[in-house]
């Protein structure tokens, strides 16, 4: 497996930078980390009776909390720029913990320029004066691509652990 072009520290750097942009609400910087053909999906989990592993059986590709491409993400972020986007006025205070980074073969097989990666995330969300955060946890399955020496997110699938979202609005990115 030739992945010399993307080493482990570059991968970790990418995730740390991404989390920083999202936690600091620098959404336009975050957008710049995405490949123009990015596909970004957060499917709905429904606990099903049949299924060998929980992750495989609970999700379908028919129901999603987010199902995005660069155009829809741009539109969302344009809206969040508005002073009238009440869900993020004032912004949700978030802290993203990104751990358990595991490298995988990219689905494309383009091991020279791409790598697959699994990460675990915990996103702590604080709203209003409540000292108790809503915590979203899940696993992300990503494809990262090297473009002009920089890593870009080309594909992301977020498998959340909850079925019912405890957050009154999903106005953040995972």
């Amino acid at each position, binding site marked *: 497996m030739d992945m010399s072009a993307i080493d482990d520290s570059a991968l970790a750097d990418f995730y740390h930078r991404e989390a920083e942009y999202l936690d600091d609400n620098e959404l336009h910087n975050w957008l710049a980390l995405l490949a123009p053909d990015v596909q970004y999906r957060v499917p709905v989990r*429904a606990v099903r009776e*049949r299924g060998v592993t929980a992750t495989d059986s609970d999700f379908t590709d028919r129901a999603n909390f987010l199902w995005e491409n660069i*155009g829809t993400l741009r539109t969302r972020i344009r809206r969040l720029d508005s002073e009238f986007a*009440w869900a993020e006025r004032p912004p949700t205070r978030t802290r993203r913990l990104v751990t358990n980074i595991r490298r995988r073969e990219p689905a494309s097989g383009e091991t020279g320029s791409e790598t697959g990666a699994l990460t675990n995330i915990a996103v702590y969300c604080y709203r209003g004066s409540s000292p108790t955060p809503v915590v979203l946890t899940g696993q992300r399955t990503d494809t990262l691509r090297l473009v002009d020496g920089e890593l870009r997110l080309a594909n992301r699938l977020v498998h959340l652990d909850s079925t019912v979202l405890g957050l*009154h609005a999903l106005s953040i990115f995972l």
Partner: protein
Amino acid sequence: MSADAGTAERSRVDVLLEQMGADLDRGLVPAEVFNDPSVYERELRQVFGRCWVYIGHESELPDPGDYHVRMIGEDPFVFVRDEAGVIRVLLNSCRHRGSVICRVDSGNTSHFRCPYHAWTYKNDGSLIGVPARQNGYRALDMEEWGLIPAAQVDSFHGLVFATLDPHAPSLHDYLGKFRWYLEMQVALTKGGMEVLGEPHRWLIDADWKSGAENFTGDSSHTQMTHRSLLEVGIADQAGAGKTGKAHGLHVNECDGHAISMRVLAEGEERWFDYPKELRVQFEQGALNEAQLDLVRRGVVHDGTVFPNMSFIHFSAREDIELPARPFLSIRTWQPRGPGHMEVWSWVLAPREASPEFKESVYRAAMASFSPSGAFEQDDAIVWNGVARTGGSLAAELQGIRFNYQMGMPGMGDAEPLADWPGPGTAWPSNSGESGLRTFHRRWFEQMTAPAPGAASPVEDKE
């Protein structure tokens, strides 16, 4: 609110209902009804225990044995298609000693087997297996110990409703005049609508009535609450802009249900932005000319079937570089304790539409009406505030009443239409809150309705 639950709070609901009865004609509603334990407890019984409640859509159960767990009030029911194809709504509770028989959200099964002592039921609810029957349960009458069905189950163009009240009127009569308006949402084509995927479910720190009343026709909130969408161009002025006589129609007094419509001028066409292939099918469908006209000119239709099922037929841009796309969203505002609800939301498309079109419908709905939806994100925030005020001590001590007077006689500049072709009372303006008043009147009547064969709870007090 009194700290000791029990009797002090139990009487609070009666005080509030008495106050509400006196205030309703003036368009006022006590704030506390949006967050009070005694009100909540009473409404579980009087509203959710007695009304027809939306369970799901027939298309969610394509095959025998398909099931989903759904709620009536706070009680879980199994929504299942049995081997004979009949749709059942069965309490998710074993008849032996109450353990839950179905511990997942969805699945397909011919039998439900209780994990406690293995009583086993067919998917029509009948009991067919009891372990050690010969040794311990020889005289058990199996027919008497099937799963408990809802008292009545019926459907309307694929929408399945159930009620726990055996004395409730038929679903046909319960929907009453509102059937005419529901048909415009779910009977557009011969094949009707189909649910796409699993529902979105999320929690909001707000009372279920905030969602229900809003969808009856809170047209004046869109400009402020959803201003960011107008700014960016996700929605247009016709769909979510200023209220008045230009586009707006409010129809209420439809047997307790109400709808709000924004339509273009006579002769213009919008069809919620459905494409030509489907418009042709709508014209050949089951709607009469008056209904078809409201769909042809339709920009947005949103309404509430009392108590907690709402819909919105609309179009929006998920990418502002691309045209708006149509969608139908159906949702239920499930009570989850005083001041809390769980929203369940489904996306629907005409059955005849192509898979590509259905995908575009799903994406447009998700991008506007879902927990991540550009519209709905901001609704949740404002509804939280209502529950917060409702639960405040100030609401009680200062007798806070919310104002629903917009558009009332002496306030508004519109009069009900004399020549309206449909049922109910139609107002040729959406600068009003008549739909919300219909909702609260219906709620008040339900809260104070005498139990079948008993005195009304309010009279009980005296």
